[in-house]
């Protein structure tokens, strides 16, 4: 089963991160890297990325006149998607176990969602 693990940030988690010293932040990055390495070694990792700052995000709208691109309205959003892991693992319990290791879990900022399968399904 594939699961999409979304890691969000909110004002308090961002504040906590910013209060860290450079060394603490470095060891924080190492912690994520270690999880990525472990998941790659077990064959469970499909993709993982950290997203760039939301100030670089573009809002895309298509109308009859064509596609327009804007900056908003992300500024008002309190909770932002900060990064994700796409894993293929044995069970939902395992996906939750992985998700529970991220520090953001302490702030309730991790969301695990199953990925839709595109096979033809069964006869039942």
């Amino acid at each position: 089963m594939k699961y999409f693990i979304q890691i969000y940030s909110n004002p308090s988690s961002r504040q906590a991160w910013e209060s860290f010293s450079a060394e603490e932040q470095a060891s924080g990055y190492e912690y994520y890297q270690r999880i990525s390495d472990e998941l790659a070694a077990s064959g469970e990792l499909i993709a993982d990325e950290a997203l760039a700052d939301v100030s670089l995000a573009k809002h895309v709208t298509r109308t009859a006149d064509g596609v327009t691109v804007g900056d908003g309205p992300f500024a008002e959003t309190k909770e932002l998607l900060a990064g994700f892991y796409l894993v293929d693992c044995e069970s939902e319990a395992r996906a939750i176990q992985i998700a529970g290791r991220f520090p953001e879990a302490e702030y309730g900022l991790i969301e695990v969602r199953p990925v839709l399968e595109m096979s033809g399904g069964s006869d039942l």
Partner: protein
Amino acid sequence: MNHASKDAATDAVRALRDAAPSALAVLVRRYGDFAACEDAMQEALLAASAQWPADGVPDSPRAWLVRVASRRYIDEVRSDAARRRRESVAAELEPPPVPVPSRDDTLALFLLCCHPALSRPAQVALTLRAVGGLTTAEIARGLLVPEATVAQRISRAKARIRASGERFRMPRADEADARLAALRDVLYLIFTEGHTATSGEALARVDLSTEAIRLARQLHAAGPDPSGETTGLLALMLLTDARRAARTDATGAIVPLDEQDRTLWDRASIDEGVALVTQVLDRAPIGPYQVQAAIAAVHDEAASTADTDWLEILTLYKLLGHLAPGPMVALGRIVALAMVEGPEAGLSALDLEEMRADVEADAPLTEHHRTWAVRAHLLERAGRTDAASLAFAEAARRTLNGPEQRYLAAKAESLRSIH
């Protein structure tokens, strides 16, 4: 590719996959190191898949694979040995003539891939490569995951087998039963992974159902089957796969059993599956795969849903409920009951089952989309259109399968518009 060369390529792939497990068994028997032998065999298979379609399949595909893989293995050990300055090891490695592998060796190889220290995904990947003779790239296309993921899973699995210190041999009798049961579950998992869609990018997908049937045939041929469950598994696969052409329409959308064009069902597979299940029910103790095969056989032999012997199916589901209780078995029994006694009887049984599940905190039943889909179908048949539409919508919301979601959502929509 023209027809002739396409046929040559198909022949070559079939020949190399058939020969792969016994060739690997010979190699492991000779040199002992499963992980390194498996790597060497993978290289030999890649060489064969490049060479055989053009030059033709050799007279003895197995001897060819053993010869090439042995050479690769020895080269590898030699370069290792050179590094470690231990030339004497390599000197002893000149290949002796190819011995005939026993059927036991193929079975031992099957069972090694289902080592209990491995996770299910690792067992699946290793079985497909070591016994199935598929390349890492093909397995990745079949499972719809990146090639690197499959490669990691396999190398990790082999490292675990090595760390466990397991030698290449038949497991003791007391372990063999549990391993065989695990292996059957792995093969069935590969089979269900392969319910292929027929459209778009799915076309390039390696056909895992066909591979699973091929492997189940090999396992079936590899030895006696005292439990009857290997025969049951093969029959179940054949009887289910027989309906494949009718299961999806031209757009890849699901066609439910009662609306399938039964002339598209594969008669030869049905006949073979029915013969297998009939014969095994006579000789072996009854088991879950056999009963599931028997249920599939009743469906396959009926000319339509109305002509189906639902009383027989109900009896079989009750039996299955004793052998292997579970939410999906309970649902199958309820569907059969509704066909025998009518939709209201089915709905009452479903209510009862959900109450029982609630009491026993058996969450899967009440939360599963199939429970909602069954309820929706029963409500529709009972003429309670509005409730049926809501239940279909709920089932669509809960499914993890794309085509199924589209089917259920369309049902919800079509019932909504009737007033």
